[in-house]
């Protein structure tokens, strides 16, 4: 089949009745978990991963992609109505969104948030459609040294971004890599770190670990968390309409936020969080009315929501074209692809062209569905914010247990789930981010395999990494990122001595 025919076959697959319904289910579930207190898209996707195993790969991946995009929309509803971010990436939306709701303008704020998400999401998907195949075409020539460099730099840059302490980040990555080493070594067949336990021979499955860290820890946290009541807002369709002034002020903010978010999504790290701050700062500095920011400026809702959606799409570029995730959510998406026997990366478009284009087409469809779900039906989602946590969390717990059990039909995975639930709860209290641990588990085996292959290629001369332009440049960036704080300190010390 030619390239164009592949695209058509993918689009036709996405438009089949079954896949349209799955897409609708995915975006609705995504919006639901975005709105629900506590449970986020990472927890929801990890909970549903085992369920998708029962589905055909295209349908399973469309469901996961739907939840991914839906979660980004839903987070803004609680930010605006309750002043509690559904997701860390919705924190900035709280500042002006909640102020607008207090002023009786919750409807327009929610409408602008949904429109901003839609426009930025669409821009992001268009850029993804063109950029991912182009990058994959270039990456097809990559060898193990390039992949090793990409994964290593991804981990190093992520750790600089996800915590203020490099020690805590590297510690979490190391824990993840060590956990990924448990079981049979694929290259030699040797048993490693099994402690003579038969349960550990096949290694630790990452699904119960992710479910524990993100799902069970929420159940434990729910025993003490207090939940605020949402602002009562009249969210009938006629009250949602933004004014001409709102649209005029929001349009440039959405465009700038969307592009900025997409570009930041290409960089390793929690870009969907950082981009919201960057977009907010940028809009405030460009605005003719900066004094309104923090008091209910509509741009203060439009820009971060657009940036969040742009970044969420941008992070899919390295995942789909290189097969390397740069943050936890794409890492879980990578695992979703892999459990369906599809390896994202340069070869994916040749090996599974229909599936690739069906997933991309479903993103366009899902984005339109999300606009419909989040504009006329926003009142329904607002009611979900009233849902009782003490009913929700036991259900989350049961779902986690079934999900963990069904991976290998093994109660040992349920025990792993609980252990990592407690660890996730403790990390939360210690204000330590678990996402480097997840990336360590998923990227650890890739790091080991590519280093082994590179060592064989270079016959022990590791300096050869620097003789290849791509791996050399990437490793130089990695070294710079790691030693940048030390260089800055040295620079300050020298400057201080000069001025003295």
């Amino acid at each position, binding site marked *: 089949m030619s390239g164009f025919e592949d695209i058509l076959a993918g689009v036709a697959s996405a438009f089949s009745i079954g896949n349209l319904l799955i897409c609708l289910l995915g975006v609705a579930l995504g919006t639901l978990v975005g709105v629900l207190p506590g449970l986020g898209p990472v927890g929801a996707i990890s909970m549903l991963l085992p369920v998708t195993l029962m589905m055909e790969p295209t349908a399973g991946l469309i469901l996961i992609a739907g939840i991914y995009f839906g979660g980004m929309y839903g987070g803004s509803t609680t930010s605006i109505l309750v002043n509690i971010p559904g997701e860390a990436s919705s924190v900035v939306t709280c500042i002006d969104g909640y102020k607008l709701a207090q002023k009786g303008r919750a409807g327009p704020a929610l409408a602008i948030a949904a429109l901003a998400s839609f426009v930025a999401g669409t821009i992001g998907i268009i850029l993804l459609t063109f950029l991912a195949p182009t990058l994959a075409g270039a990456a097809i020539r990559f060898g193990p040294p390039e992949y090793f460099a990409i994964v290593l730099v991804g981990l190093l840059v992520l750790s600089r971004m996800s915590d203020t302490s490099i020690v805590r980040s590297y510690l979490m990555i190391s824990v993840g890599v060590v956990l990924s080493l448990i079981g049979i070594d694929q290259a030699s067949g040797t048993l490693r770190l099994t402690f003579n336990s038969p349960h550990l021979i096949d290694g630790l499955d990452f699904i119960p670990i992710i479910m524990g860290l993100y799902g069970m820890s929420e*159940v434990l946290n729910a025993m003490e968390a207090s939940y605020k009541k949402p602002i009562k807002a009249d969210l009938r369709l006629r009250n949602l309409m933004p004014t001409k002034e709102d649209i005029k002020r929001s349009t440039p903010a959405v465009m700038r936020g969307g592009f900025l978010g997409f570009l930041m999504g290409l960089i390793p790290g929690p870009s969907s969080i950082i981009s919201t701050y960057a977009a907010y700062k940028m809009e405030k500095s460009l605005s003719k009315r900066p004094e309104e920011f923090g008091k209910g400026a509509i741009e203060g809702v439009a820009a971060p929501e657009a940036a969040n959606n742009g970044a969420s799409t941008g992070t899919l570029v390295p995942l789909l074209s290189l097969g390397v995730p740069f943050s936890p959510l794409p890492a879980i998406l990578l695992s979703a692809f892999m459990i369906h026997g599809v390896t994202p990366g340069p070869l994916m478009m040749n090996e599974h062209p229909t599936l690739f284009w069906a997933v991309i087409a479903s993103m366009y469809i899902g984005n339109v569905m999300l606009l419909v779900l989040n504009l006329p039906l926003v009142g329904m989602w607002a009611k979900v914010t009233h849902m009782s946590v003490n009913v929700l969390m036991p259900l989350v717990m049961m779902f986690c247990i079934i999900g963990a059990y069904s991976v290998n039909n093994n109660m040992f995975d*349920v025990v792993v789930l609980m252990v990592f639930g407690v660890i996730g709860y403790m990390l939360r209290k210690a204000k330590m981010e678990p996402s480097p641990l997840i990336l360590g588990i998923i990227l650890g085996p890739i790091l080991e395999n590519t280093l082994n292959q590179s060592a064989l290629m270079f016959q022990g001369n590791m300096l050869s990494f620097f003789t290849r332009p791509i791996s050399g440049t990437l490793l130089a960036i990695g070294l710079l990122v790691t030693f940048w704080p030390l260089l800055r300190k040295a620079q300050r010390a020298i400057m201080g001595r000069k001025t003295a």
Partner: protein
Amino acid sequence: MTPLVFRTRMITGTLTLILGLLTLWQSRGLPFGSISNLRPGFFPIIFGSLLTLLSLILLISLFWERFKNKNLEQTPPAKTVTSAESIDNLNAAEAVKAAEEAENDDDTFNLKGVAAMTGVFALFVVLTYLLGYTLASAVCVAAAGFLLGLRRWKILWLGIGTALVTWLVFEKWMGIPLPDGLWF
């Protein structure tokens, strides 16, 4: 840094130190190989050492911080996001930290709750072996609902409803074989 953050980081650092040492102990018989031919022991030894070293650095830095600020409550709090102005002063890592603080600003550790929920899990594992998955889930969801504040008939409905839906959806519809239990 609050006393809770200090304590939980100490526990985390101790656990990762134990994991690092166990990794090194388990890797002692594995061949390390050479730079041209990496063997199965290479990664466990490198990352086990890294884990041990980083855990020690974390623990020492925590002790050092405590030594410097005897009263941990007096140390400056993390930057938070409460206003448009506060955003101007954040760098990327601080922005991520502030976002996570804002999403999760509680500062208590519910040890009894965590222990009770772990107990529910242990009970679930035992009951699954004895009574089977469906009945065990009914009992344990009800128990979890109780721990989360549900009372009276709501607990009963939640337990029975969850067990029924679990059985219908997962066993009957999806065909996941849920364990039957020794007594059935």
